[in-house]
């Protein structure tokens, strides 16, 4: 699907990710009002609401957003595992792009302490398809061991990816992980082993959080008398295609082919190439993912990701700054809101309002990539105007 009409990011907001818990209502309202204030329009102008959550109980969400205003608009809940926030944003964007609506809003949230999903530690509780013995950390670690065999990737390179994201998070007041001193490769390697070769500091924390974004048509911008400074130039949703080696069990993510296909479809839609990207948000739940996705989205060729990392090209000062807000590893991954938090970060980087973590070379284009178990992939490209 491609976009028929221009769509602009009008406002973004998010709560800090992490604890305290059991306060999700206030986080949702905090993120939403921040987005409404940022957009500088009254909530009554929002014509449709897309609520993203992958962990909340079935009726949670719509009653909370009543506090934004009982305006009678459609309120739709969306769930797509880790990609939930990306899916909510995608639907909000396409509702405007199609010409059906002029102003829509995506609000995504989760609090794992109130999770309604099965207990993965209780084997009797879950379907055999959700294989409790091969959890996500095992799945991605097997990707890493394979990569080490094929390309000579070392645990030090995975630690370098994680350290970069931890240190970017130190510059993001909304990040879950706020290290008081620089995180070194040695500290990452020295943390508790989760699943070889991934240590705890190479994996995303899962705290609570909420994030929100308002998008609008060009006609809406004219009506409000504002000039959009960030435009959505590509919105792609993909799922897996069959290939030998396809897995049908477990909380799995499909092969990087799906990621590559979504990214290059987005480039075509945006009429740019990977060389035009100036900031990238990845699904870096585990360090190996970010490394593999460098190649999958075309930042470098096959087998070149390790060099790209060690050359500093993905640092804030490099050609392709990645996970600038800390990514999953530093900012955190509550699940539902993560994809909208990526849009929050890209918007600030493209506007030039990212503060201390602003990338050295002001970007014109930013890419947000997120995947969800099952598996699905959402890729958006935002462009400064």
């Amino acid at each position, binding site marked *: 699907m491609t976009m028929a009409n221009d769509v602009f990011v009008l406002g973004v907001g998010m709560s800090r990710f992490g604890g305290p818990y059991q306060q999700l209502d206030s986080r949702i309202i905090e993120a939403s009002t921040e987005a409404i204030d940022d957009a500088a329009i009254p909530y009554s102008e929002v014509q449709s609401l897309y609520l993203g959550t992958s962990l909340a109980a079935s009726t949670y969400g719509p009653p909370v957003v009543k506090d934004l205003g009982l305006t009678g608009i459609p309120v739709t809940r969306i769930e797509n595992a880790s990609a939930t926030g990306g899916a909510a944003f995608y639907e909000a964007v396409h509702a405007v792009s199609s010409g059906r609506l002029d102003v829509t809003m995506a609000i995504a949230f989760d609090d794992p302490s109130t999770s309604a999903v099965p207990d993965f530690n209780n*084997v009797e509780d879950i379907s055999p*398809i959700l294989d*409790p*013995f*091969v959890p996500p*950390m095992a799945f991605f670690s097997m990707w890493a061991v394979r990569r080490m065999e094929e390309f000579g990737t070392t645990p030090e390179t995975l630690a370098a990816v994680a350290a970069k994201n931890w240190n970017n998070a130190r510059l993001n007041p909304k990040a879950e992980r706020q290290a008081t001193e620089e995180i070194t490769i040695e500290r990452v390697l020295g943390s508790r082993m989760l699943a070889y070769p991934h240590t705890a500091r190479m994996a995303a924390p899962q705290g609570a959080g909420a994030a929100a974004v308002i998008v609008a048509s060009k006609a809406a911008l004219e009506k409000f008398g504002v000039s959009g400074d960030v435009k959505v130039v590509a919105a792609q949703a993909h799922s897996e295609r069959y290939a*030998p080696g396809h897995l049908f069990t477990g909380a799995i993510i499909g092969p990087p082919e799906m990621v590559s296909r979504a990214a290059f479809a987005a480039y075509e839609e945006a009429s740019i190439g990977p060389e035009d990207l100036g900031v990238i948000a990845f699904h870096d739940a585990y360090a190996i993912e970010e490394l593999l996705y460098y190649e999958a989205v075309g930042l470098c060729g096959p087998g070149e990701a390790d060099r790209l990392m060690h050359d500093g090209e993905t640092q804030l000062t490099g050609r392709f700054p990645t996970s600038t807000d800390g990514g999953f590893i530093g900012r955190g991954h509550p699940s539902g809101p993560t994809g909208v938090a990526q849009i929050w970060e890209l918007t600030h980087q493209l506007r030039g309002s990212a503060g201390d973590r602003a990338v050295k070379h002001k970007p014109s284009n930013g890419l947000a990539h997120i995947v969800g178990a099952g598996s699905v992939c959402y890729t958006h490209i935002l462009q400064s105007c």
Partner: protein
Amino acid sequence: MTSSEPNPNRSKLPENYSFDDSASGITIHGSQSDELGTTYWPPRLRCPQTGGSVSPVDLATTGILWSWSYVHLPWMGDVAPNGDDEGYGVGMVDLDDDGPRLAAVLMGSRDDWHIGAPVTARELPYKTIDGKPQSILAFERSAS
């Protein structure tokens, strides 16, 4: 055909849908695309490539280790695969005879696990529920 009538082309999943173990050895139940011949695990209701029919097939119980890891978490059950409760191995295995890839627990020690190593399916008891032993499908390094 009305919606209330059973679709004769629709396959049924076996009761024990993925594997079983008997005195004659372990069996891994899969599906085979009637049109393409491609095999899948666990069994599918339709061919994921064509949407066409599939037939039950017993898959190879040996394969090649595509990758592995060791999960440092308490074992989720009563019996640890390696005789301790520290953690357990996991692997992706490409079954022989052009079979599918599957992810499962690995038995044995880390010294046994190398990409490309031949492995053999095993039944791994992990828990007893209401007096009945529960097992999962696992793999271990094939005897040389």
